[in-house]
């Protein structure tokens, strides 16, 4: 059995059908490939066919998923029939820097843990705070408040067999100058880390050094590449007039994120470190900003299995 289990973070937005029973007729209505991206049956098969065992979900898609399947358990069964399990789910903790919001954010975190438990997932990959452009810079007190609520959610998660894994964004209020400090403010018994390789590179930190330093905490990855070498504070903090406040989506269509191997992240160096630390667990391919999710899934799978797999698998 491989040490690395490949999952895919599903940026498919709403998938409106469970299964298309009249696929050929439906195709003939417009004769385009749109028909191929509208139902869970096909999309899960694409996952398995391109080498994935897991799918990571986004919380804003759950309403439609539960509408289509009725219960989390029914969705899990449907996935498993196609050889896929839920590896994890994303979660956001906006306003976590405000002490008075602790209980509300803790409750939302508990609900996310409960949902993920029903889905059979392991990692609740959690963005710790709002964007820098909205609330930055965070004070020491604010950072402590974030650490407190994340640790509390993490404790509840561990009790339920789930790992809360910090997931940083290069435009988050927890950023270049405080993200290592922040990680150390959380309790290592309850709070883990999901290393998003492109986000850390864009933030301007050293991906390899970061992994080597925190390998014990890093229990999963969002694997993606970037062609940017570390963006300026102005860009990351949403203060650059060319990029404006919402940094993530650029005005001109410039992509921050690319498929593994298409950018400048030292993937081979990282894989040597995975081998050094005997990493075992889920690696989620995240292909946000790709124009073609299926092509991106296939490219990433090739890179992990055929290129990096020669180093460690």
């Amino acid at each position: 059995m491989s040490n690395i289990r490949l999952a895919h973070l599903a940026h498919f937005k709403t998938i409106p059908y469970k299964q298309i029973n009249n696929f050929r007729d439906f195709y003939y209505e417009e004769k385009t490939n749109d028909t191929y991206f509208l139902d869970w049956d096909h999309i899960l098969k694409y996952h398995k066919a391109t080498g994935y065992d897991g799918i990571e979900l986004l919380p804003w898609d759950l309403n439609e998923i539960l509408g289509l399947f009725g219960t989390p358990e029914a969705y899990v069964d449907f996935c498993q029939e196609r050889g896929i399990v839920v590896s994890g789910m994303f979660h956001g903790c906006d306003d976590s820097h405000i002490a008075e919001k602790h209980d509300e954010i803790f409750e939302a975190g508990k609900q996310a843990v409960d949902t993920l438990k029903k889905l059979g997932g392991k990692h609740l990959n959690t963005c710790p705070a709002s964007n820098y452009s909205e609330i930055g810079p965070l004070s020491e007190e604010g950072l402590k408040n974030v650490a407190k609520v994340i640790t509390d959610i993490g404790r509840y998660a561990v009790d339920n067999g789930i790992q809360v894994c910090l997931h940083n964004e290069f435009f988050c209020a927890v950023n270049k100058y405080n993200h290592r400090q922040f990680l150390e403010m959380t309790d290592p018994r309850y709070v883990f880390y999901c290393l998003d390789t492109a986000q850390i590179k864009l933030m301007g930190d050293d991906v390899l050094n970061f992994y080597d330093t925190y390998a014990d905490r890093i229990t999963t990855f969002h694997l993606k590449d970037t062609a940017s070498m570390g963006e300026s504070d102005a860009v990351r903090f949403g203060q650059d007039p060319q990029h404006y406040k919402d940094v993530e989506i650029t005005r001109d269509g410039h992509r921050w994120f690319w498929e593994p191997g298409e950018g400048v992240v030292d993937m081979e160096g990282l894989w040597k470190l995975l081998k050094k630390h005997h990493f075992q667990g889920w690696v989620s391919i995240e292909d946000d900003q790709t124009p073609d999710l299926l092509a991106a899934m296939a490219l990433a799978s090739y890179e992990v299995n055929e290129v990096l797999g020669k180093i460690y698998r």
Partner: protein
Amino acid sequence: MKIGFSSDLVNLNYHAPNRNRYESVYYWEELYTLISAAGFKYLEMGYNPKWDFGRSGIPLVNRSIELVYGGFENYLKLLHESGIEGITSVSFDPNMFCGGNTDMYFGAVGFLAPQAIAYAKSSGAEVFTMTATPSYYSVKKCCPEGESFEKFEEEFLDKTASLIEELAKKAEEAGVKMCIRNDYWTLLRGNKIVDFVKNLNAKVYIDADTANLKAAGVCPEAFIKDNLENIGLVHFSDTDFVDDQEAYLQPLPEFPAKRSTKVFKDMGRGTVDFVKIYEILKDGGYDGNIICNARNSYDQCRSLLRARRYLQTKLGQ
């Protein structure tokens, strides 16, 4: 009678290939020129607070217009330079706020719909049109276990009437005509909207959406002819869908589960008789606008040109 095109041409909800472009400013700015090149000089914008959260490339919330253009004056200037003469209507669909709790739903819509009205005012739109209720499926989720849905539905509609009356006041203050629409999965589907509007204690008009009327089993020509004096906006949307599977009750009613089909088709690809409807509007002295729809389009340029081809060859427009 101005003929415009709706922004729901851009399907932001589903990730077919190349969807990633739709969140960036450059995509929309080119699209305006293409809409104009297809002969449409007016737009309807679908206000959607979902895009308030870090997606300001999508021009469907006030925040986007402020962040990207510094306000509506600059945005409208850009539209003019792109060949778009104006935004004639702003639509708002509250279904996403109905997640199982009635109080939260009415609270959210009461808070957010005025933002859409403000967008309408700032953009110079003549009409604010709101889908009158969430879907049957969403409303049923709010109904407490053991309670009769018929009674719950009645109460929900009473609260809806109060909400719409409040919003109509705000629209009037903003100098905008308020309409409500009845997508075929809503509590006011088909002819139910007629009496509802008549009984409101505010002047609210009907937004007649041809495909939604047809999918609800109502003849759009007859509906428009019978209710012309209460119609404030007409949507030219096409369909050949016959709801023989109670899709209107399903969780995602635009995507009928038993037999998949593209419910909303490009103009001319369905069975709606726009020639007859256009005659009724002209003969009846209709002085509102027409908005063409290509909801869930698979190809924006093709949808635009199909609509223009239909308007040119069948309606002389």
